[in-house]
């Protein structure tokens, strides 16, 4: 008989779990609530909180509005077109965030046609909350598409066929049969997208160093004032994310 694979596997899995759990426990244990609360007065922190929450909410909503139709279409299509489009949707997920920021700069940056037009009309796309939204949407919305696609695929298409053979249009069928049944899956995707958006760092720092989001604010505090100054902001960000996610579900 060989080694006891069951025991080996159990140990490996348990170690990974501890690796996920320990840092979080450590963070929560190491911070005094008063220090965290004290930083809530800091205008820089309040500004970053506002920017992060507003931008993440907007980019998540944009992802839902534009992403659900795409996800539905992908779920009901087959063949090579589906494969190609799916690959394109996954692209922002596998693209390094910092590269995402750079590629966005080539399209909406200040020196590009789109960027100049936008600036001229008073809505600059970099160093603005619009830039934050653009960065977050690019990076986070694929989570909506990928998860909602899986949720739509999980709805038995005979139910749609049944609805339509009962005389209901495609739009009515989607609204009253498909969406309600896919809803739990869609909500999971929305949650993931919001979390990804509010934590977005690499693309945002390229596209919109100002107005600072919380991750950028943490980086600035860390690199100029050190770990202990950045910590309370990180706890606040963690708190904001957790509260938003709980509200979402």
């Amino acid at each position, binding site marked *: 008989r060989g080694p006891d694979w069951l025991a080996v596997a159990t140990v490996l899995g348990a170690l990974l779990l501890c690796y996920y759990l320990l840092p979080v426990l450590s963070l929560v244990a190491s911070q005094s609530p008063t220090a965290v609360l004290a930083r809530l007065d800091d205008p820089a922190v309040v500004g970053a909180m506002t920017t992060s929450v507003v931008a993440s909410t907007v980019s998540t909503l944009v992802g839902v509005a534009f992403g659900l139709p795409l996800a539905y279409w992908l779920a009901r299509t087959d063949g090579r077109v589906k494969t190609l489009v799916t690959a394109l949707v996954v692209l922002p997920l596998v693209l390094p965030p910092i590269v995402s920021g750079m590629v966005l700069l080539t399209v909406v940056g200040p020196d590009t046609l789109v960027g100049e037009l936008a600036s001229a009309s008073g809505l600059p796309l970099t160093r603005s909350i619009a830039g934050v939204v653009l960065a977050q949407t690019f990076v986070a919305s694929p989570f909506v598409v990928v998860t909602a696609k899986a949720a739509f695929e999980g709805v*038995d298409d*005979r*139910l749609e*066929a*049944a*609805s*339509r*053979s*009962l*005389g*209901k*249009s*495609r739009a009515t069928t989607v609204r*009253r*049969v498909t969406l*309600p*049944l896919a809803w739990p899956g869609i909500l999971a995707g929305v949650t993931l997208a919001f979390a990804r958006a509010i934590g977005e760092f690499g693309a945002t720092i390229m596209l919109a160093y100002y107005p600072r989001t919380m991750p950028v604010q943490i980086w600035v505090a860390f690199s100029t004032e050190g770990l202990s100054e950045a910590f309370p902001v990180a706890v606040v960000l963690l708190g904001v994310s957790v509260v938003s996610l709980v509200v979402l579900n």
Partner: protein
Amino acid sequence: MLELDALETRYDDFTFGPLDLTVEDEVLAVLGPSGSGKTTLLSTVAGIVSSAGGSVRLDGRELTGRPPEARGTGVVFQDGALFPHMTARENLSYAATDAGRVGELANLLEIDDVLGRRPGALSGGERQRVALARTLAADPDALLLDEPLSSLDAPIRRRLRLELHDLFGSLDIPVVCVTHDQRTASALGDRLAVLRDGQLEQAGPCSAVLERPATPFVARFTGSENVLTARVLERTVEAVLLGLAPGRPLAALDGTRVTADVGETVTVSVHPARFEFGRETTAELHGVAPLQGCVQRLVNEGDQYRLVVETRPGGDSSTAGLALAVTAAPTTVSRLGLAAGEQVSLSVDPADVNVIG
């Protein structure tokens, strides 16, 4: 009236049709093995999959190319396809063109008591009733059913079969009911169509298809398991004598039913339930002496006994035996005291011999 005209559907590895079929305000049962295209037929007529050619007309309206919601074809899907997030009542209301019909249909199909339940809390029979009521609530111009009884337990299936028979009779629309179960097909259908590999193998009034299957496939699939090669032994103007071997007649048929000459062979089929039994009698019945055989197996199937009877058409033990599938009612088995290893005499009414050709 539902008219299919050279209707055709193609998948990667399967071609359905082209198929011509007309269904009046009657019940057409479509029988076929799995993979023969039964569900494809319904899906194409309902517009759930698009046809590759041909046309569908319902009461004169051209349906080809229309979306499913504009066809007026009500489909009862296998296992119901009820909306799981709605109660039975909500399922009906969703479909109903007239809210008042919900109660009426719930009454008709005896589902009043379960209207408040979600599909997950319904039994198989209740699910089928709700699905049927939902489809009827949309007031369809044709009703298409996909294996309505296949997932039900025997007592419920027997009961629902009789109820559906009555219900379909009261609807004045074309009904197409697809099934792989020959008993359901013959119990429900006014007419019967047999599909094989996406092609129509035979269609006609139910009793005609059951009693006169046109091909060995239809014969076997509708239960006429004995597909035999018979020889024309004698021929007069009025009658033709068929036998399984020289000097061993099987039945004397009306002369118009067989065109082959003496000495030529024809393929015939006989349903296992159509044999008449005797115990070692040689008295002529239906004009010929009975076949003598030995019961090789006798299996109690509950409502009938299934026998394999080996006959020696050559009359002596040197010729190869021919195994006939025969079924007998329990009363017959007990009356004659049939048992494995014993000799029996089998006769068959010439009307029960089907000439395939």
